[in-house]
């Protein structure tokens, strides 16, 4: 066995992937952090109290892990799901009753709920330790945008099963957009946007822009599907990268000055 390990570790393929020996001594534990793509977001060394679980609660990391879980299970679900009135509900039924990968839907849904909770807890911890204070002000702002995007991800995904629960939750949730000041057709001040005829109607207002139609329908399903699977995840990925990068640039993990 030891011989086999030696053959593998000495092979050109292994060495081309991992350019240094196993991280078992101090030197290689430092080198691994600098040469591994997935590890290089971390610093090489860190304050011991800064990573104590009773201090950080690990909630930021947990949230990121849940985002990855949602991405992987979401991609698998996309193989089985068609966002049309004809197929959406039936595909979910099939995921529940037929496909052996159907458990992915459960993991995806509970993971989404859990992600909303862990984002809140992460934010709660950051507030309670005053970690948004200078020099980390702007990273807090990015975090708030990520919070909003997490809620929107969850909200757009809620519609996709196309059952009673989904459609009416989105109907109730998006009805508010009707009342957007000036831009909603039942909002205060929309009468003032006029070109001789009213500019803001149920066919042109903020809710219409959100739903792609006057009511939650096939256009909405398509719109929410794109938002859920492509648009928002792209934005989240970009902001996550900045969020993590700035943790390092703004002085590392927080702690007393």
């Amino acid at each position, binding site marked *: 066995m030891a011989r086999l390990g030696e053959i593998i570790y000495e092979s050109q393929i292994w060495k081309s992937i991992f350019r240094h020996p196993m*991280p078992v001594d101090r030197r290689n*534990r430092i080198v691994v*952090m600098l040469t591994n793509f997935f*590890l290089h977001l971390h610093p*090489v*060394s*860190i*304050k*011991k*109290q800064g990573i104590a679980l*009773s201090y950080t*609660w*690990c909630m930021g*990391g947990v949230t990121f*892990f*849940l985002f990855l879980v949602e991405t992987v299970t979401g991609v698998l679900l996309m193989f089985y799901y068609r966002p049309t009135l004809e197929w959406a509900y039936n595909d979910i039924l099939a995921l529940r009753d037929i496909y052996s990968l159907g*458990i992915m839907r*459960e993991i995806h849904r*509970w993971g989404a*709920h*859990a992600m*909303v*909770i862990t984002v809140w*807890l992460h934010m*709660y911890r950051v*507030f*309670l*330790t*005053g*970690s*948004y204070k200078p020099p*980390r*002000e*702007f990273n*807090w*702002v990015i975090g*708030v945008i990520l919070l*909003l995007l997490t809620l929107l991800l969850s909200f757009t995904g*809620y519609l996709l*099963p*196309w*059952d*009673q629960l989904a459609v*009416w*939750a989105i109907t*109730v949730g998006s*009805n*508010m*957009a009707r*009342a*957007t*000041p000036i831009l*909603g057709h*039942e*909002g*205060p001040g*929309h009468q003032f946007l006029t070109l001789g005829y009213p500019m803001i109607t149920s066919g042109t207002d903020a809710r219409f822009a959100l739903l792609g139609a006057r009511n939650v329908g096939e256009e909405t399903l398509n719109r929410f599907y794109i938002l859920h699977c492509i648009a928002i995840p792209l934005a989240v990925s970009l902001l996550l990268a900045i969020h993590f990068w700035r943790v390092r640039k703004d002085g590392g993990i*927080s*702690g*007393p000055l």
Partner: protein
Amino acid sequence: MHGISPQQFAGSVASFLWPYYLALAAMNGIFAYYLWQKSENRPFFSLPTPGFAFRFTPALLWTIVAIVYVFLASLAIGAHLESMPQVPQGFRDFVNASSKATIYSLGTTAVLVVLYLFRSWFVRPMVAWSIWNLMLLFLGLSMPDPNFFSIVAKPDNVPIVALVFLLAFFTWLAAYRAVENDRRMDEGLPPVEKLDDEKVLVWPDLVYTEMICMIALSAVLIFWAIWLQAPLEEPASSVKTPNPSKAPWYFLGLQEMLVYYDPWMAGVVLPSLIIVGLMAIPYIDFNKQGNGYYTIRERRFAYITFQLGFLELWVTLIVLGTLLRGPNWNFFGPYEYWDAHKVEALTNVNMSEYFWQYWLHRSLPTAPPNSTWSTQLGYILLREAPGIILVLGYFIMLPPLMAVTVLRRYYQRMGFIRYMVLANLLLFMAALPIKMVLRWTINLKYLIAIPEYFLNF
């Protein structure tokens, strides 16, 4: 209990309860073992028994509690509702009869205030552990109630129940550390976080922690997914409106605000202000203390404001909207059947009606028929003048007033713009509880009611 027999119901309750009680027993057993291992297991009292000294220690107490939980589990596993441990019917009737939106909101506020004021007592591990056990026991004993079970065990509501317990735990953890730090700083010592300046290598210390977290979380998710099927109702139908129609649970605080505000406020303006206000926090909090460690005393204002906004106005409203609002958005007690025919007689009155009709005994000012657009607007403004003056006074008069009185120190430290942002955010935040109290006390519907322009406030 719709569509399932009492036996099936008892079976589903039992399948939740017996593993639940066993888990609680294990939790208390582990805690007792931990206390026993620690040298701080000081006995509550000792009995001079012949032969050996009987010492009633915390470890013994929590061992007994663990045994009681095992006993409860054995009662639950039989799946007979009669023998299942549950809260007495009289208590349930009392809770149902006395629970209203007012009692709930004032009660949660009072609880938070008491927890805050006596935090140094509540964070003591023995006290906190007792409360934690009572919360969990309350949930277990309530589960055999069919109405309670049907709401709490609804798959999409499970996250909220989890959220309540997680928040209880993490609020305790943060407060425990803050109380400890505050005590230390009183004695002139640095906060706990500052004691250990040692640096460690990320590999292995952090990387392994992350990996263990990932594995544990994966296990939790997989068990959750196996145990609880994702909800799937009937196919969507635009003609069958469910009653109640609810948004996803994280937006139910906003939906609950619809009781007190029109959609343009509850659904658009206030949520936007929440986001803007959160973003503004680092720029309006000029307090340099409390950066990177838990403390309450060094940043009391920030702490209280945030907890009021998050725990009271956000989380308890979500719990209210999710668990206690039934058909027609009526309030239902936790053990109450969701009866779609429940009628709540409530006539709400606008500020203008109070002013013109009740106090001046006149009819509302109304524009003469066929009058011009501007005349109509003039009459509307006259009609709503009392409310407009009140609201404008609130938003325009109060910030400068507070700047020279209660918030004087803040105004001097912050400068004009930052102070105005803070003051207005605070006023908007306070507008919700104020409107709630006005609704409960004088049935006030709107301060400003201009349905002609969809502007109700």
